[in-house]
């Protein structure tokens, strides 16, 4: 009897260790006590499960994307008027991809348009899986920050990232998620700031199109952890 219990306990502990190893790190989400306003703390507490689900979904289902530490949260966009406490649900991701001559041949604005088309809509849909966020009166908008290695970066050298930071107010996102606005409309209404490494490029005019890459692409032989369902 005790041997059976011991075996069961061992099996259970192995299962717990196994699932712990496969879990995404929670340090991707800004802790509640790191916010500087009560409005942000309220949002962070109320939607903590939604932020964890967003983090886990990207970790398990889009494993070529890397979410840096403290890159998911209810941040205040710096470009907006101060001292208003505008709060945007923000997600920053770094996109890992193989070098591509076709992609490298595009100009920066075209690369930005391509990345916007591929990732921004898909990330916004993930960020609004908890539908209540789209109507949350405390929330002012959403932002998606995308980074990728500049094509001129060389292996072995410190990489330079190109970055776009996309900001859209909540009504714009509500229209997009409800299908009242297309990705092209979203690109026209959003503020998109570009960066070459650390150098700001100002506001970029994005040409966007529908891209279903994330619905169809899978890393060869990649299997999500047991119990994880990817849509």
């Amino acid at each position, binding site marked *: 009897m005790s041997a059976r219990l011991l075996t069961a306990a061992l099996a259970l502990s192995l299962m717990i260790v196994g699932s712990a190893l496969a879990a995404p790190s929670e340090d991707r989400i800004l802790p509640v006590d790191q916010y500087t306003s009560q409005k942000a703390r309220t949002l962070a507490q109320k939607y903590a499960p939604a932020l964890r689900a967003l983090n886990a979904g990207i970790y398990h289902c889009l494993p070529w994307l890397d979410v840096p530490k403290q890159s998911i949260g209810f941040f205040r966009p*710096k470009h907006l008027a101060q001292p208003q406490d505008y709060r945007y649900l923000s997600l920053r991701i770094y996109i890992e991809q193989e070098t591509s001559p076709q992609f490298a041949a595009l100009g920066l604005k075209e690369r930005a348009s391509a990345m916007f088309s591929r990732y921004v809509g898909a990330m916004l849909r993930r960020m609004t899986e908890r539908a209540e966020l789209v109507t949350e009166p405390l929330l002012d908008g959403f932002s998606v920050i995308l980074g990728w290695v500049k094509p001129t970066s060389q292996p072995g050298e410190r990489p330079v990232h190109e970055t776009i930071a996309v900001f859209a107010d909540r009504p714009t996102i509500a229209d997009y998620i409800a299908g009242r606005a297309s990705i092209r409309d979203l690109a026209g209404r959003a503020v998109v700031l570009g960066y070459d490494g650390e150098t700001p490029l100002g506001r970029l005019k994005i040409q966007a199109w529908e891209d279903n*890459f994330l619905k169809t*692409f899978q890393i060869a032989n990649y299997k999500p952890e047991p119990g994880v369902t990817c849509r």
Partner: protein
Amino acid sequence: MRGTGGRLPLAGAALLLMAGCATSEEWTTWKENPAHFASGDHFKFSMKNAPGSSPRVSREDLEAARAQNWWGRPITVRQEELLER
């Protein structure tokens, strides 16, 4: 006097500009073939699966590959430049 001397630098500049920009064909390729750069070789790592077994790539394998391919902290815009807490 009105030889090609003045036109050559212009032609060279035009060629450089063309080399630096995507042709409409390349742009169309990107749009129409959205998976062209993100192949199954996204990450370079060795398969540790036994011969005969169906290969399985786990999240841990991808993390290991990411660590191997890490070239150091990237030069990128700091979060503080974009967002406040």
